[in-house]
């Protein structure tokens, strides 16, 4: 195999996430402004490539061909690679992985990965319709399959098979909402959610309550990636990409197999750890895809942080909180920050970079983090995408 170049994230930023009075192009402009402010050494002329994570702009913004649109909005003129990456909820990480591949292979030297999603529409039923076409639309979506009822079935089976409780699921949400209280860009930055309060919120899809579900969110985020020899021009604290992994083996729900054993995530993790030459015990923090509280519980198990079935207890006893075995979702997670599909994976990478640089408020700063993992699932957890970062400097 050809020698790959080393690649690092050298800076990044996110817009405010939430119910935003801003269109898709305006969010892209904001991401550009935030990015250039966060990375003072960045010159637009140095950015040779742009990767745009966007899940459903055709449906949410009635706009295709968003890669050149984003470039124009951000004041960039890519001369090597310009492309959109679409992988539903993992579209943002897909943009970073593509930028990483481009730089590692030598096709790009400095690339921007931006994620943009505008999800709150005048008609929420129309937005929900778009969410249902992430599934196998004519065969599953037509029955009313959106994410909440699917992940509700996952939770129902996990409760049946492992005795997981509503209180344990609420513990995940309470932790991530608490972290979001120290993240001004989070959708629920100023909202306090105790476990007791979460358990009183209305059911959306039983057994999942409102607080077990991430929300429809408008937002954007961007990172810059650079080849090893150029890294020092941008930062003293690069986040080196040391490994990655991905796995998918089904799409239609009939082919999902066990709802509670996410074997695809296990396989993606095996590849990510193998390529980074580390094991799960080396991680200091992880940004896991908590689209629903039950997702984070099963992700602990699939990652090997705890035995199968023990994820609920792992959340409830503080093992995934500051002072625990690993800090999971210090950014506030999808539950606390909201989930603008294309932007989420990029915002997670921004958090890793800021954590490594000790640039986040103390209430969510992981003590001296050296290794971080970012995970996104997409659709019905039928794709798992992962990246592993190491602190440089």
């Amino acid at each position, binding site marked *: 195999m050809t020698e790959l170049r080393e690649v690092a994230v050298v800076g990044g930023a996110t817009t405010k996430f939430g119910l935003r009075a801003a269109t898709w192009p305006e969010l892209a402009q904001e991401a550009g402004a935030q990015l250039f402010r966060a990375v003072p050494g960045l010159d637009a002329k140095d950015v040779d490539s742009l990767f745009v994570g966007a899940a459903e702009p055709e*449906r949410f913004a009635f706009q295709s061909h968003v890669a050149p649109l984003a470039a124009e909005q951000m004041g960039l003129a890519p001369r090597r690679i310009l492309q959109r990456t679409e992988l539903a909820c993992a579209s943002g990480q897909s943009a970073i992985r593509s930028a990483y591949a481009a730089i590692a292979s030598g096709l790009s030297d400095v690339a921007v990965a931006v994620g943009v999603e505008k999800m709150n529409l005048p*008609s*929420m*039923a*129309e937005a*929900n*319709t778009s*969410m*249902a076409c992430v599934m*196998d*639309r*004519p*065969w*599953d*979506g*037509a*029955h*009313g*399959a*959106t994410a*909440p*009822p*699917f992940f*509700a*079935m*996952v939770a*129902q*089976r996990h409760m*049946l098979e492992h005795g997981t409780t509503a209180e344990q699921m609420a513990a995940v949400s309470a932790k991530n909402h608490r972290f979001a209280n120290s993240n001004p860009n989070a959708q629920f930055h100023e909202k306090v959610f105790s476990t007791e309060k979460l358990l009183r919120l*209305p*059911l*959306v*899809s*039983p*057994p*999942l309550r409102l607080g077990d579900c991430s929300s429809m969110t408008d937002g954007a985020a961007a990172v810059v990636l650079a080849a090893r020899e150029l890294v020092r021009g941008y930062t003293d604290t690069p986040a080196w990409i040391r490994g990655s992994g991905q796995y998918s083996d089904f799409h*239609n*729900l*009939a*082919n*999902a197999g066990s*709802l509670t054993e996410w074997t695809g995530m296990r396989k993606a993790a095996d590849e990510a750890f193998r390529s980074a030459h580390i094991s799960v015990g080396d991680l200091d923090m992880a940004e896991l895809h908590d689209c629903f509280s039950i997702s984070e519980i099963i992700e602990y198990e699939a990652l090997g942080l705890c035995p199968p079935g023990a994820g609920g207890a792992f959340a409830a006893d503080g093992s995934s909180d500051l002072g625990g075995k690993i800090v999971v979702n210090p950014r506030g997670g999808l539950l606390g920050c909201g989930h603008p599909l294309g932007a989420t994976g990029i915002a997670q990478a921004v958090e890793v970079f800021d954590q490594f640089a000790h640039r986040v408020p103390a209430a969510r700063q992981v003590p001296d983090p050296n290794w971080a993992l970012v995970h996104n699932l997409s659709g019905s957890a039928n794709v798992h995408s992962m990246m592993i970062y190491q602190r440089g400097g």
Partner: protein
Amino acid sequence: MAGAVPTVGSGGRVPGPPEPPYDRPPFLLDFFPLEDAGQTRLAKFFDELRLGRLTTTRCPRDATMAWPPRVVCPTCHGEEMEWIELPKRGTVYAFSAVLAGAPLGMESDVPFVVGLVDLEGVALRLFGRIVGRPWDGCEIGMSVSVEPFDVPDGRVFYRFRAQP
């Protein structure tokens, strides 16, 4: 949602007599499959469903049974599929309900139950709507049967009905 289908300038079609008003939801807001033989090679599935039979495709070379039905075998990539009839009874493996956040066209169905159903005697777990019992009266392991139902515009689809 009525409005004439444009005939001039769209795909080079020759102007002809005016077409009847297009009274379906806009295609990009229409969940149900395209069913007729002019649009899909799987029209037989819907013809059989109309007669009350649930079917899918199987590869005669390696016996790979697929869901949803297909035109190419995912195992050997052969293109000669055969149709097989599936059992219509099954048991619920998991279920939930949509109490809020329904897609367009499904808002008036709320609350509705969906579930994954293990069909009897065949290795197939199908997702679908479950009717005939409120969500808080459903349980894992309960018996359901497959039934066709009419989509208002003349198409047909399937769902599960809880057994009494």
